[in-house]
């Protein structure tokens, strides 16, 4: 039997490659986003199950109120669905894209809150004896790269950057909570960002 005959008579086989691997591959979340862009609701459900615990933790840590965090997560996922066709894998990972959407949605709600409303939830927010964010981060495997770089920062720089990112704290809030003058906090952030960038990009 010739090779051609074999290929004609063989049963359907899974698609696979007899070619070298591609330089750019979509991560699994990117694949799901792509399916969402084509209207696949099951893909959205899978995407949600895979990412919502992290994204909900983020919304919750910024908004510090469950109902608002739930609303933010819900609306963010509706946006993710509606804008999935705009996701470009070459410009960043699917998780980065979704984190950006959830975070901006949550920060917008936070910044719109009247100041007194925010003060009322202070008891829910970070305690003074809260563990260094690095401790919980080190348990995760995914963020190991940024954690390695965070470790190289001074404790104040690290704390300011992580608190600003995951709690949405402004310079003023950081200054109040960390008990340092505004200018000091600003320079912690600036120097911390520079070190983080140099470490992530080059080392």
């Amino acid at each position, binding site marked *: 039997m010739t090779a051609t005959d074999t290929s004609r008579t063989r049963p359907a086989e899974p698609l696979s490659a007899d070619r070298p*691997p591609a330089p750019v591959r979509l991560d*699994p979340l990117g694949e799901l986003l792509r399916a969402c862009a084509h209207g696949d609701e099951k893909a959205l459900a899978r995407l949600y199950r895979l990412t919502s*615990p992290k994204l909900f933790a983020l919304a919750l840590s910024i908004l510090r109120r469950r109902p608002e965090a*739930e609303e933010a997560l819900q609306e963010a996922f509706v946006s993710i669905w509606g804008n999935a066709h705009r996701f470009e894998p070459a410009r960043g990972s699917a998780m980065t894209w979704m984190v*950006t959407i959830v975070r*901006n949605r949550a920060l917008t709600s936070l910044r719109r809150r009247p100041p007194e409303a925010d003060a009322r939830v202070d008891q829910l927010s970070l305690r003074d004896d809260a563990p260094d964010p690095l401790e919980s981060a080190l348990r995760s495997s*995914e963020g190991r790269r940024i954690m390695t770089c965070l470790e190289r920062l001074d404790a104040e720089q690290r704390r300011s950057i992580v608190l600003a*990112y995951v709690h*949405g704290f402004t*310079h003023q809030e950081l200054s109040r909570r960390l008990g340092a003058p505004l200018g000091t906090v600003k320079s912690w952030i600036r120097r911390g960002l520079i070190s983080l960038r140099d470490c992530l990009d080059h080392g």
Partner: protein
Amino acid sequence: MADRDRNILNLLAGEYVLGTLDGRARRRFERYRDGDAAICAEVEGWERRLSGLVDTLQPVEPPAHLLDAIVQKIAAPSRRKAESGGFWRGFGLAAAVAATLACFYVGWLSAVPPATPALMVAVLSDNSSTPAMVIRRAGDRPVLLIEPARVTPPPAGRALELWLIPAGAPAPVSLGLLPASGAAEIALDPAMAAELGPGAVLAISEEPTGGSPTGLPTGPVLYQGPVLSRS
């Protein structure tokens, strides 16, 4: 741009993404950013660098009803109008999301290929090499036209799913589900459109209704054929 300016711009973008660039400075930065590819690239760079910080948080399982609410919303967008919450709030939040995506949108616009009309066609054959359908790109519109010639409709509970294997790629990427007849127009995203060149293969597999549960073909591959295109 001088190195010094670039460094300042990069740090502004970092503070913007971190959220510590506030009030007027934030709005001014957004005005400069919109439509500026260089600033967008700085912003995206920081979004990439900092998004790993989410791992400093312990994951929290959201309540079970949330997914149902999301599915309901995307299935019936018209229902959204009837909901409480107020027009302005909804408007502002939609604008916030649009701002998030502004850079991606700019990127999308610049990714649209120049005016040479695309010519792309693929003839998909079944396992006995009998041509079953023609798939072609409609000019330079990001649309694939699928014209069945000899397509057997899938059995009940099964569906036809179209896959693209880009040249050199180890695994297929779903382009979407086809109706039972096989005739369809499928919207292409720009990244996929760019992959529809020589060396790529289009294929159709039989999957559960709703599509492959794994993101890769799970059922038999019924039809396949190479992509032919003018380069």
